[in-house]
């Protein structure tokens, strides 16, 4: 039995969106790997975690629960503090002054 049209539309658009975000994450991952300088890698990391957050949001829409949104919020918080600490390290050579 095939599911109704509405579910098919939403399901396939979510799949397409997840594919696009997956591609975006691989672009960011490639930038992390090739650099060439430390700031490029950190920029890649910043993009990577924002994309990961978006991926979790699409999974959250699919599942219909709040669980994934809290996970997305946690990724946002940790990614932000991580990249800020790394940028600070680039500036001064130490994280906490």
């Amino acid at each position: 039995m095939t599911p109704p049209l509405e579910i098919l539309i939403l399901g396939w658009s979510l799949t397409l969106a997840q594919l696009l975000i997956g591609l975006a994450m691989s672009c960011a991952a490639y930038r992390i790997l090739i650099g060439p300088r430390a700031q490029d890698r950190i920029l890649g990391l910043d993009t990577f975690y924002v994309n990961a957050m978006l991926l979790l949001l699409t999974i959250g829409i699919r599942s219909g629960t709040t669980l994934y949104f809290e996970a997305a919020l946690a990724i946002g918080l940790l990614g932000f503090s991580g990249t800020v600490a790394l940028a600070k390290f680039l500036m001064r050579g130490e994280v906490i002054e």
Partner: protein
Amino acid sequence: MSNAPLLPLWAAILVGTLVVLGAAIALIGSIGLLRLNSFYARVHAPTLGATLGVGGILIGSMVCFSVLQSRPLIHEVLIALFVTITTPVTLMLLARASLHRDRVEGNPEVPQSDLASLERRDG
């Protein structure tokens, strides 16, 4: 692949479009991260995903969950606020750190003084 919450047809189309658009914009931003050829040009790329990319997907999910009436929309609002405030902070810090490093190394691509462009304009 095709499991998703059951919405009315208009909502399914609207949510699907918003989510795909948001994801496409995030992808364009990440492609920019690969294609642009200097670090300072690349810093502009992730803001696409962090503004309209995040915006599209969050509005999609707000529409979805307000039609389903399963929970309040506080998470989306919080995430949107958080992303709008944090992304500029990271990018600014990163740009300043990079400028500092380039100046220390004497890289000719960056202005050694903040006033370079003013002096050029005023002659």
